C-alpha cells in the first residue's frame, strides 16, 4: 500500500494526506528503500559469514580483519587504561569482604607449604642425582623450558557464545599459534589465532577446549574440559573407575607424547583442584569436577608461553 494515502478528517470535513518521506529522518523512508537496505545488509552479513568460514586464516578477509584489529588496537588500549582504575577499585572493595577469613586461611596454608618446600627440596636434589645416573631424557617441561610473553587483555568475548579473549601480543612478540596461555594461578587456554600484534586465546571454558591432565597425587589421567552447565567449573573426563582421585587433589597438565602426536601443553601447568568425585554403575568413567585456579571472569593480563627448546621430532 502506498504511503501517500488520503483520509477524511471528520471535524474539518476535508481530506488530509500524509506527506511524502521526510528528507531529514529515516523514520519516514519509503518501504522499498527500507527493505532494500536491510536486505542488502543481511546479504552482506551472510556473505561475510560464508567467506569468513570458508577461507583460510591467511585469506584476504582475515587479512582485512587483522588490519582492522590493528587499527582498533590504540583505542582498545586507551579504553582498557581508563577502565583499569575502576576495575581495580571494584576488586579491592570486593576483596575487603573476605579479607579476614582469607588471611587466616593463608596463614595456615603458609605453615603447611613451608614444611612441604623442605621435603620438595630434598626430593628435587634426589631427582637431579638419579636423572644424571640414568641419563634420563625428557620433553619440554613447565616452567623450566618456557619463557613467557606477558600481555594485557584488550578485548573480551562479545557474548556468552564465545569463550575467547584477545591479548595485546602477537607474532612480533614471539607468540605462536597453539601456544599455551597461563596466569600466575594456572592454565587459561591456548592461542587459536594470531596476528602481528594481537592473539586470540580460546579459554579452557570453551566447549572445544580439551587438555590431557593428571592428578598430581595419584597420577590418574584424564581429559580436562568444560562441564555441561557448570559455569566456569571444569570436569576431568575419561578417568577410569579403578583410578584413585580424591577431593582436594591438584590437577596438572599431562604433557603426553604418543606416536607422532604430542600434547600442545607442557607437563606440569596447574589447572585446578578437585571439588567432587563420583561414579555411577552406568557410567564408564568417574565423574570428577575441578575448580580451576585461574579466575576466567576477571582476567586482565596473561602470560603466553614460548618454548625455549625446538619442537621434538617424533618418529
Amino acid at each position, binding site marked *: 500500500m502506498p504511503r501517500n494515502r488520503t483520509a477524511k478528517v471528520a471535524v474539518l470535513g476535508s481530506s488530509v494526506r500524509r506527506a511524502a518521506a521526510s528528507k531529514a529522518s529515516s*523514520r519516514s523512508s519509503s518501504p522499498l528503500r527500507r527493505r532494500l537496505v536491510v536486505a542488502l545488509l*543481511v546479504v552482506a552479513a551472510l556473505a561475510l*559469514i560464508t567467506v569468513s568460514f570458508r577461507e583460510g586464516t591467511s585469506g584476504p578477509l582475515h587479512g582485512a580483519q587483522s588490519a582492522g584489529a590493528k587499527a582498533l588496537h590504540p583505542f*582498545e588500549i586507551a579504553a582498557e587504561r581508563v577502565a583499569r582504575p575502576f576495575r581495580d577499585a571494584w576488586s579491592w572493595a570486593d576483596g575487603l569482604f573476605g579479607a579476614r577469613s582469607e588471611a587466616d586461611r593463608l596463614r595456615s596454608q603458609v605453615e603447611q607449604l613451608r614444611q612441604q618446600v623442605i621435603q620438595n627440596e630434598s626430593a628435587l636434589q634426589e631427582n637431579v642425582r638419579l636423572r644424571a645416573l640414568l641419563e634420563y631424557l625428557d620433553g619440554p617441561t613447565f616452567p623450566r623450558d618456557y619463557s613467557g610473553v606477558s600481555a594485557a587483555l584488550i578485548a573480551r568475548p562479545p557474548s*556468552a557464545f564465545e569463550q*575467547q579473549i584477545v591479548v595485546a601480543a602477537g607474532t612480533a612478540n614471539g607468540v605462536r599459534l597453539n601456544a599455551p596461555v597461563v596466569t600466575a594461578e594456572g592454565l587459561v587456554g591456548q592461542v587459536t589465532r594470531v596476528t602481528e600484534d594481537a592473539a586470540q586465546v580460546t579459554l579452557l571454558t570453551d566447549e572445544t577446549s580439551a587438555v590431557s591432565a593428571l592428578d598430581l597425587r595419584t597420577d590418574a589421567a584424564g581429559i580436562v574440559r568444560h562441564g555441561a552447565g557448570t559455569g566456569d567449573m571444569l570436569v576431568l573426563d575419561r578417568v577410569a573407575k579403578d583410578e584413585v582421585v580424591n577431593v582436594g587433589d591438584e590437577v596438572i597438565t599431562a604433557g603426553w607424547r604418543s606416536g607422532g602426536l604430542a600434547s600442545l601443553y607442557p607437563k606440569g601447568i596447574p589447572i585446578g583442584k578437585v571439588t567432587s568425585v563420583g561414579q555411577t554403575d552406568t557410567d564408564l568413567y568417574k565423574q570428577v569436577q575441578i575448580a580451576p585456579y585461574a579466575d576466567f571472569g576477571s582476567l586482565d593480563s596473561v602470560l603466553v608461553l614460548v618454548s625455549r627448546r625446538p619442537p621434538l621430532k617424533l618418529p
Partner: protein
Amino acid sequence: MTHAVKIAVLVFVAGVLQATVFGSAGVFGATPDLLLVTLLAIALRRGAVAGALAGFLGGLLLDVATLESLGVTSLLLTLVGYWIGRFGETTARDRAYAPVISVVAATVFVAVGGYMLHYMLGADVLAARALGTALLAALGLNLVVGAPVFALGRLLLRSDERGGRAGEVQLLG
C-alpha cells in the same frame, strides 16, 4: 554535527567499550551489552534504516575487535536494529515504555538468535549456559545500562520531530 556522524561516533565508542570494558563486567555469567543498548537507542530515535546500518557496522566493529568470525554479530544486530527501528516508527512511537520493551525483546532475540546461529555454524554451545540464568542476568544488566544510554540517545539524537510532524498532514480541500 549531522545525525549520521553522531550515530557513527556512538556506535564506535559503544563497540570499543563493549569489547574492552563491558565484556568483563560479568554478573551470573552475563555481561551488559552496551553496543546492543546503544543500537536500540539509535533505532528507536532514528528508525529502521539507521538502526539496521548501525547494527551492521557495530557488529562488524565488534567482530573485528574480538577477532571473531566476521558477519555473525553483524547479522544479528542488523535484524535487531531494523526490527526495533520499525517498532519505534509504528506502535512504539513516543511511548514511554518503548525502551524497556525494546531492551527485553532485543536481549531475548540476540540470545536465542545467537544460539541458533552458532548452532547452525557448528559451534558447541550449551543452551543451558546461553539461555539459562545468563539470559535473566543479561536482561537486568541491559535494563540498568539502558537508562543512561537512552537518555544520552534522546539528547544527542534529538530529532526534528516538531517540524516533521507538522509537515506530515496537509489539508487538501
